[in-house]
């Protein structure tokens, strides 16, 4: 089983789909149970994989390789290293939670919902495991189908607009990546991600390719200014959809930068690093300010996600051990905390069917347990020392300080704004007067809600005080990546840069 442990995680959810389809006259509850059992089993397999994961090894583990598309020499090649293994774990961990969280919230077309979620899990895990670039693309873009359906069918009032926006935005980005992948395939003669780094592409070429990848990953991330699909998608998606969107799908962008942009296009990555820094800083500060004035809880958290992802892109393109480590950690921490925050919003939304902040207030009186859990997560999102949010932000800032002081200074102010909007949200929802009778009458967390929120809150604290638990596996792979990046980055890149500039100046003269 160990030899195929990744395939098992990728394809087991599809078995669930077949079961749901094959059993005639399956009740809605039956579909829920099948989905829950299957996804829990997948999580179990993931835990087994973690148990077998060899700490300290930077290389890929659990590698499977077999022919898939011999006519084009494409392979079914999967494997994980420190960079991807936790994303796999995060995906398989959040999916059963999502299914539990919408046990009562989703009443119509339950079977279809469960099928969409299981398919989504297949694509998510596949994206993080794939080591063949075309296979990666297939999974990466396949995610759009179930997510489009989830937002469009079970979403809120403006769901159609949001679903289209989400789909077309991300599709537009990814198709450009496809052309870049095809070009790399032609140039390097391989689609193997691990071998693609061994290329001698000119900086001029790298720049175009980098931009194509950037179009895809920046939209997925999402980076300012292409983030506008995210608030819409989050607001309209059902709770479970938001959780997966924030928890896993956003990480695909960061993961893509780490897998493709840095190792395969090092020169261009260095060339564009400053641009990414400033875009990240704008994202961190601007979207934090935007979050401050939101009246909709989900929208506020959505903007906070954009802001937090700003730290990730900042960290990744520092190209330093701390920066990339921090970006990785920030992604995982955000995956847990923002997913949990969306679940928290879902809890009150299920009771009152509104996300307007002003409709709530004083929940601490009637929902003390909710207030406690929410507080932990809120503080995690703020980045209070002792929570996982702090570690990620701190490390990325440290990494960026080594590279670009100004950027680090500006980015740090984002932490302050982050505290501002989260605290305001918390105060308005949990403390203050109980203005509305219906909000005041809401019951506290049910046992089931408690059961899925507490583990997330515990993890937010646990990783805050013992980040080494995950860093020990992440760091070796990251340092390996940094080595490749620094080594492939030609030492005379500045020279070549000036050559490019000279060329353009020359070109201008010709005109």
């Amino acid at each position, binding site marked *: 089983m160990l030899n195929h442990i990744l395939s098992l995680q990728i394809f087991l959810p599809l078995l669930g789909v077949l079961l749901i389809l094959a059993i005639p006259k399956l009740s809605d509850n039956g579909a829920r149970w099948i989905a829950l059992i299957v996804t829990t089993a997948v999580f179990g397999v993931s835990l087994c994989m973690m148990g077998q994961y060899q700490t300290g090894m930077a290389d890929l583990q659990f590698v499977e390789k077999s022919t898939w*598309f*011999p*006519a*084009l020499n494409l392979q079914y090649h999967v494997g994980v290293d420190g960079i991807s293994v936790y994303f796999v774990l995060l995906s398989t961990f959040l999916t059963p939670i999502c299914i539990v969280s919408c046990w009562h919230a989703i009443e119509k077309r339950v079977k279809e919902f469960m099928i969409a979620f299981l398919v989504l899990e297949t694509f998510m895990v596949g994206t993080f495991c794939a080591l063949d670039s*075309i296979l990666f*693309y*297939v*999974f990466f*873009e*396949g995610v*759009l*189908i179930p997510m*489009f*359906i989830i937002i*469009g*069918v079970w979403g809120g009032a403006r*769901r*159609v607009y949001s*679903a*289209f926006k989400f*789909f*077309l935005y991300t*599709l*537009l980005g990814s*198709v*450009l990546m*496809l*052309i870049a992948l*095809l*070009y790399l*395939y*032609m140039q390097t003669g391989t689609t193997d991600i691990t071998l693609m780094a061994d290329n001698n592409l000119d900086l001029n070429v790298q720049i175009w390719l980098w931009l194509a990848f950037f179009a895809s990953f920046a939209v997925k991330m999402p980076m300012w200014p292409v983030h506008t699909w995210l608030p819409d998608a989050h607001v309209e998606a059902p709770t479970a959809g938001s959780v997966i969107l924030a928890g896993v799908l956003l990480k695909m962008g960061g993961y893509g930068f780490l897998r493709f942009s840095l190792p395969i296009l090092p020169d261009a990555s260095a060339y564009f690093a400053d641009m990414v820094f400033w875009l990240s800083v704008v994202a961190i500060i601007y979207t934090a300010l935007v979050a401050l004035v939101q009246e909709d809880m989900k929208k506020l958290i959505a903007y906070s996600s954009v802001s937090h992802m700003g730290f990730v892109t900042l960290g990744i393109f520092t190209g330093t051990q701390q920066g990339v480590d921090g970006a990785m950690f920030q992604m995982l921490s955000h995956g847990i905390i923002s997913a949990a925050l969306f679940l928290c919003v879902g809890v009150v939304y299920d009771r009152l069917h509104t996300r307007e902040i002003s409709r709530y207030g004083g929940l601490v009186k009637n929902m003390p347990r909710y207030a406690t859990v929410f507080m932990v997560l809120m503080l995690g999102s703020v980045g209070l020392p002792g929570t996982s949010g702090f570690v990620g932000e701190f490390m990325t800032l440290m990494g960026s300080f080594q590279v670009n002081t100004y950027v680090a200074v500006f980015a740090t102010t984002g932490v302050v704004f982050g505290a501002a909007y989260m605290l305001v949200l918390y105060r308005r929802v949990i403390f203050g007067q109980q203005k509305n009778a219906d909000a005041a009458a809401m019951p506290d967390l049910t046992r089931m809600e408690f059961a899925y929120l507490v583990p997330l809150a515990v993890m937010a604290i646990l990783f805050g005080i013992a980040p080494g638990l995950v860093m020990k596996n992440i760091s070796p792979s990251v340092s390996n990546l940094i080595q490749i990046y620094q080594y492939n980055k030609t030492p005379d890149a500045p020279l070549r840069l000036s050559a490019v500039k000279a060329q353009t100046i020359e070109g201008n003269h010709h005109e």
Partner: protein
Amino acid sequence: MNDFSFAMLMPMMPELFLAVSGMLLLVLGVFHGDKSSSAIGWLCVLAFAVTTSLLLQNSWVETKVLNGMFVMDQFAGVLKLLILAGLMVSVALSIRYIEDEKMARFEYPLLILFSGLGMMLMVSANDLLSLYMGLELQSLALYVLASIRRDNVKSSEAGLKYFVLGAISSGMLLFGASLVYGYTGSTNFIVIGDTLAAGLSVGALIGMVFLLAGIAFKISAVPFHMWTPDVYEGAPTSVTAFFALVPKLAALGLLIRVLFEAFPTAAMQWSQIITILSALSMGVGAFAALQQDNIKRLLAYSSIGNMGFALVGLAAASPEGAASILVYMTIYMVMTAGTFGVVLSMRRNGVALENISDLSGLSRNCPSSAYALAILMFSMSGIPPLAGFFGKFMVFKAAVGAEMYGLAVFGILTSVVAAYYYLRIIKVMFFDEPVPVFEKGAPFVRRLVVGLSVLFVLVFVLNPSPLVSISRDAVSVFFNG
């Protein structure tokens, strides 16, 4: 050369059989009248099946008969298989529909049969004369089919429009053929190719351009696409399904053979023309479809766009590109068959429906066809892991391989625009409020076609290799020496 024996005609056996059985069925139809239309329809399907088996038994090694006018090779074999499959599906899908629409005439399946015969001759044509004969046999049957509902204004208009514009395009094609003949001294593709290899003449090039224009009309490449939306909309839906499935495949096959056999030395020139045709088709196909409310018009523009994508492969002018067209067209054909299978079942109170809004809430009224159509639409928009993605993947890979980055980027961007209107169909089915249900009881054949098509789209990802290998083998005939 003068020792004529029937054994020499062996490579033509499938065509001969089809022609003879078509004539016999015609006689049968004349004696039994229109009430025999469904029997004749099934007999046509049987004739196609027998033809297919004859084709499979035939040797696919390159052989030329009739003084080099007719060639049977790997490429022709593969294309004929596809054409026959498309013909079978078209007739099988039509039989019930023409009865429901009270237009069951025994000529209907026979016209499909004869146009199919024309297509088979087209893809085997190795001479400008046999090319023209095949093309016209096909086209005349198609003109009549488009206007088969002669008491209906739209249908007659469609037929007439198609006929007039088709005649103009045939004229252009003939003019081009005469120029090529005048400047190369032969109508045989091989001889033309050899003559031009010795030196390109401007006259022959102009002739080639006219030839291209004529054929571009048949595959409805922009700017020769004007007829497509009107004909698609005006013709009865079953005829539209047939138009969408087969004729363009045959015309593309013909185009590939003409360009690679007769004008390989002018590749640089025709590649430019094809690039423009392709870019325009993709652009117009994507943007014009956005505004359509009639699903047949929408599919017409979609087919224009899809021809544009297929032409991307041809513009690459490489073996890989030629193979990618076959892959693309095969996948496109399967998806189209399934799509029309669903569209044909759109009827309420005995009336066939054609508006996209009639699909509203289909997912609740008839979940199985809604899911089938949704999967097909996702596939049409080229989202992996569905089959449609691999078609696009292959053509763009060929384009990137030929260093045509501009075309590749432009094409892939239009595919995003196109995704919007495919998604719109999904939106109407899944997100909108339901309208009254369609009539129940889609015939078994239709459901089978839809089911098989969806299955193909879903599982193609598991083993995409064979189709690519077959296509490569098929086009290798043009590149081996």
